[in-house]
């Protein structure tokens, strides 16, 4: 008996320690990246590095602005494409779709979420890049195809599952009684959706969009393969861009050979982490609050 109790006690201690890991890990990541980017932060201020747009590592100039703007534009364009499509589809799957269709589409969305980003990248190179090169002249522009638009299209498809998953859960938590009350007052199904489901789920929908945004913001390989990687702030969607995650992925090899380069790259990872953390924490808090309200 005593042996079993001791085993239980030891397991309990060990498990508590492990349970602390996820919380500590976030903190460790922040500290580790901050520690590694100190070398450059002692020479330049944080704001200076973020808003300076000249990137010449050999001359010691490490302005991250072109990369931040590159990420920002690609992500924004992706969200403009992805948000309406995913939300409309989520409403359809939650409120309208017959069971049979739901049972086909949901696994398809899961599969889309599970496809490796490099596969999206290969597909983008094969299909989207030539397509963009072809349609750019219609708008009076020249484009190699490796562009903000190509990155945005590929990214949009990659964030469909994130937005759909979260918003399906949000719509699912709206009580059925509310829908029935609305229908019994003579509202059409769409009016019920519009005035009851969407209104009740508004905060959750915003959270799903924020999670999609942060997913797109940090995506590396797929975007890197189709956006062209030219470190200038893009002027149109047909221009190339150089996103922040791609900066790190492309240059980690030589970062130890140029002074301060490693600091600058680790700083770029830190900036990425901070932005994604803010979006994630806010979205998760909204979702937890919405869940509590629903209970």
């Amino acid at each position, binding site marked *: 008996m005593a042996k*079993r109790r001791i*085993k239980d006690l030891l*397991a*309990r201690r060990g*498990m*508590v320690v*492990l*349970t602390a*890991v*996820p*919380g500590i*890990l*976030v903190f*460790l*990541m922040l500290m*580790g990246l901050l520690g590694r980017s100190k070398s450059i932060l002692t020479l330049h201020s944080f704001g200076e590095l973020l808003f300076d747009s000249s990137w010449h590592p050999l001359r010691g100039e490490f302005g991250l602005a072109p990369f931040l703007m590159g990420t920002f534009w690609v992500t924004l364009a992706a969200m403009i494409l992805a948000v309406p*499509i*995913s939300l*409309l*589809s989520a*409403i*359809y799957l939650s409120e*309208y779709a017959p069971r049979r269709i739901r049972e*086909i*589409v949901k696994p*398809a*969305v*899961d*599969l*889309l979420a*599970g*496809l*490796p*980003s*490099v*596969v999206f*990248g*290969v*597909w983008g*190179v*094969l299909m989207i890049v030539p397509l963009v090169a072809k349609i750019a002249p219609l708008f009076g522009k020249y484009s190699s195809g490796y562009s903000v638009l190509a990155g945005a299209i590929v990214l949009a*498809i990659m964030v*469909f599952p994130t937005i759909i998953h979260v918003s399906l859960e949000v719509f699912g938590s709206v009580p059925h009684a509310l829908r029935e009350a609305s229908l019994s007052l003579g509202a059409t199904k*769409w*009016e019920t959706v519009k005035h009851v489901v969407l209104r009740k789920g508004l905060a959750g929908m915003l959270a799903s969009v924020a999670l999609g945004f942060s*997913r797109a913001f940090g995506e*590396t*390989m797929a975007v890197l*393969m189709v956006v062209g990687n030219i470190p200038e702030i893009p002027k149109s969607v047909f221009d190339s861009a150089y996103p922040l995650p791609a900066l*790190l*992925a492309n240059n*980690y090899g030589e970062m130890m050979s140029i002074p301060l380069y490693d600091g600058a*790259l*680790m700083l770029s*990872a830190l900036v*990425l*982490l901070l932005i*994604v*953390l803010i*979006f994630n924490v806010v979205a998760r808090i909204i979702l937890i609050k919405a869940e509590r309200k629903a209970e």
Partner: protein
Amino acid sequence: MGYRRRKAEETFFKVLMIGSTLIIAGSLLLIMGTIVVKGFPALNLAMITQTPKGGYYLGKEGGILNAIVGSLELAGGATLLALLLSLPIVLYINVYARRKSRLAVFTRFSLDVLWGIPSIVYGAFGFILMMMIGLRTSLLAGIITVALLELPIMARAMDEVVRLVPSSLRDASASLGATRLETAFHVVVRQCLPGIITAVLIAFGRGIGDAASVLLTAGYSDRIPGALTQPAATLPLAIFFQLGTPYPEVQARAYASAAILTFLILAISLLSRWFSRKFQKNTIK
């Protein structure tokens, strides 16, 4: 507003909704279709049975066995490590901690936040860890990094099923005199086994497909890694590097490699679906 106009508005949005759903399903089909059409012609036995020979990246003979084995070893090791971390965490917050305890809420929150952190940041963090313990780019460094990346995915997927075990079942076990540890492993784990396997498979699929995190930590090598301290090639990076060469023959091999990776992911996903269906059948409600 007249009834007819109200109905017209509904029809209008319904068309948009169905259209959106078709776009999403269609893009999946388009991606899979493109990979199959472009990848299959370049696929041959040498691709999956040989390592790259001299001049492989210029279009000479060889295959990507190094990357296939490297990926399986790396994702396998990482998944095992992630399982050793996730299972105790999930059991603790569901069996030991009180319902709605602060620690459980905070842990779930942290896992969700970790889930949202991009893989390139895991790569950078893994790189820092690697430097701290004096490791070079290697299979081991890759395994540690990918295990951290898989942790939130696996733990949350497991949590979803372990949470559903009715408390009456745990109470019954406790009333028979079992300790919590015995309840955890003999009742909860057994009850959730198919669900736990599903979670493991999902994490494995994520691990095998991730490129950004291994880029900084596992390195790349034309040889099959023989030890944990040697660099390891991975499938996603093999695809990336082959596509980056200017030779059409090598690029065609990148498409074939992408087809292999997609096929692997598809198989893993079907397997996990099969297990999760099995789980639904076994659940006591």
